[in-house]
């Protein structure tokens, strides 16, 4: 049962996915890569809705700098899979105009690091168009691309933009940690009538997992509880979730059992699941691939404090990347990133006193 959403800014009611339907199993043997999951999500939605087009650098003839859009030019043709020049501000703004007119653009940033040249369009126009126009026009664009450090790309190419952009009200921010979620979340993002920043990770594009053949949509704002334990709550989002699972593995060998929560979306933030877990464990470690100062980790800590202060047996701890520009050298970058060792150490610390 799909729901329809009416709003004066929508020329026709939006049909939202049926989120009451139970999700298909995560287990199975249809093993595909993260990049294929993304491609399936886009292609499935594009087949249903001719308003959707994909634009970005090298998405068409080159089949995607990271091969996410491989084959899509062949299927959808050059009018819907569109190569752009290196003009992020220009084509982000083009998407805003096109979305206002009634289309549903998907914009691929080769990397979110390059979205800084488009910051004005994506932070001034995208999140505010509905408000500035007094509810006349929304801005349903999905911006997606690689986010996060790793792979020795150096200081300018390793942005975790959630640390910057999450401050701004008016966009939904999605950050999957695995292929199954990536597909379901991207489909929801494309179907959603609001703008979405969808953060992928170049480091995970080759990750493989079962992705069920049947169509599914994962709702925003619902964390996935990946491990259950009574001792401490580990909260993360995006690629570092995988480091948290490793840390949890190591800790279990020591007899420490954690709840591991994959937030999946940053805005909305499923604070209810976090609070429920913290009320059980009394301890929390937040793991975030961004710099610490005024980060999403700071926000999670703050919200936990606001809502569960009296339930805490230890102050919340956060594990961010180190607070320096991203270094190139492998040894420095390895220490720069959050990793299972640091996460496990933080969990132990919450249990020590």
């Amino acid at each position, binding site marked *: 049962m799909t729901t329809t959403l009416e709003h004066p800014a929508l*020329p026709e009611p939006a049909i939202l996915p049926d989120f009451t339907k139970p999700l298909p199993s995560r287990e199975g043997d249809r093993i595909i890569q993260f990049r294929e999951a993304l491609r399936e999500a886009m292609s499935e939605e594009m087949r249903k809705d001719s308003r959707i087009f994909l634009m970005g650098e090298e998405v068409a003839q080159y089949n995607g700098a990271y091969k996410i859009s491989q084959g899509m030019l062949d299927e959808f043709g050059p009018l819907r899979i569109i190569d752009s020049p290196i003009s992020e*501000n220009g084509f982000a703004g083009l998407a805003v105009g096109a979305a206002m007119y009634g289309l549903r653009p998907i914009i691929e940033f080769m990397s979110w690091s390059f979205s800084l040249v488009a910051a004005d369009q994506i932070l001034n126009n995208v999140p505010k168009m509905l408000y500035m126009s007094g509810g006349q026009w929304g801005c349903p664009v999905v911006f997606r691309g690689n986010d996060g450090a790793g792979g020795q790309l150096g200081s300018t190419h390793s942005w975790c933009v959630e640390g910057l952009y999450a401050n701004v009200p008016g966009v939904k921010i999605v950050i999957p940690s695995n292929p199954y979620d990536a597909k379901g979340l991207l489909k929801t993002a494309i179907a959603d009538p609001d703008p979405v920043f969808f953060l992928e990770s170049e480091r995970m594009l080759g990750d493989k997992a079962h992705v069920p053949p049947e169509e599914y949509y994962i709702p925003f704002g619902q964390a996935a509880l990946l491990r259950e334990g009574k001792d401490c709550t580990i909260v993360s989002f995006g690629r570092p979730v995988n480091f948290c699972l490793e840390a949890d593995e190591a800790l279990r060998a020591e007899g420490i059992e954690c709840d591991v929560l994959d937030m999946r979306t940053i*805005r909305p933030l499923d604070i209810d699941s976090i609070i429920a877990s913290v009320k059980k464990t009394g301890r929390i470690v937040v793991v975030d691939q961004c710099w610490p100062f005024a980060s999403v980790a700071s926000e999670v800590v703050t919200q936990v404090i606001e809502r569960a202060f009296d339930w805490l047996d230890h102050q919340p701890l956060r594990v961010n990347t180190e607070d320096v520009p991203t270094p190139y050298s492998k040894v420095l970058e390895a220490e720069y990133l959050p990793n299972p060792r640091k996460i496990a150490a933080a969990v132990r610390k919450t249990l020590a006193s």
Partner: protein
Amino acid sequence: MAQMTTETHSGSPHRKARTHRVSDSLPGETLITWLRDMLLIREFENRCAQAYQQAKIGGFCHLYTGQEAVAVGTIQSLERDDPIVTAYRDHGHALARGMDPGACMAEMFGKITGCAKGKGGSMHMFDKPNWLFGGHGIVGAQTPLGTGLAFAARYEWEVMGKPCPNPGVKPGDKPKKKVSLAYLGDGALNQGALHEAMNLAGLYSLPVIYVVENNGYSMGTAIERGTTMAHDLRKKADAYGIRGEIIDGFDVIDLYDDFKPLVDWCRENQRPAFVDLKTYRYLGHSMSDPQKYRTKEEVDQFKGKDSIDRLASQLMGERKGKDGKPILSEARFTEIQTEVKEAVRKAMDFAEESPTPDVEAELYSDVFINPQPNLSPTRDYIHGVKNPLL
């Protein structure tokens, strides 16, 4: 101090030599409407200035006085469902496009009856039923949007084969070739956004016209102090293989004669264009501008070329109807002036008497179309009242 003259700051001379005038076929009544529109803008802006002095309008407020022929002449060259987008000096475009003056004034008064429910203010005149995709505050940032409007308008007939369900579109309507206008000030020529937009328009062959409302100044900066090649801006268009024109914006009929064929060409060929449209603003940049960067003589010189006076005298003089009499009698002119004054007075009253937005209902509405729990640590987003224009 830089001194601009009505000689140097004008359309290219070739214009004078035109043999065929598209305006010749226009009914006299149409031209009278144009005059009315221009008078309406002039009067509206005068009352804005007063209201601003009385602190009924806040924020930044940029008046259009002097530039009336531009909005009216260009918009009259369009179909009513051709999309347009502009910068923050946007009252003229809104009125020329047909926005209810009450909704426009109420917006500036910060009232719920404003075109943006009081959330936007002077710089943000949006009018969906009239295909005005906003006034925008960041210099140049509207130009990629205008490019996107052209992209979408082209996409709907090329790809979708049906029009997007926009206002006025009826089921079964066929999509058609459109043109979008992206207005910008001369100061916006120096923003990278415009250049990226023009390159995209050239590459993708999009039917967008970048209309530079070249009033010679960006705030206190005379154009040649901020923009290279100010004496021939068509070079900016050449860089992207885009057709470029210089058009005089002081005589609305001349303007139309130049601009309308360009619109038709862009529509037919689905190609972009760029227009250096010479105009002049009589007042300061915004409400607090001592205007030391230009002389009173300069301003007076341009006031001497006033487009409203000119049209009025044309319609009351050389422009004759079938009966050989001037299209417009003095009596009718006075009538129109009164009518316009009355319309603006009503708009003022409407703005004055309208209620302010209900804080509880409006502060947290219009942030998301699909608000969900936990989007904010503060509280849930909601739906507010329906926009009065929809």
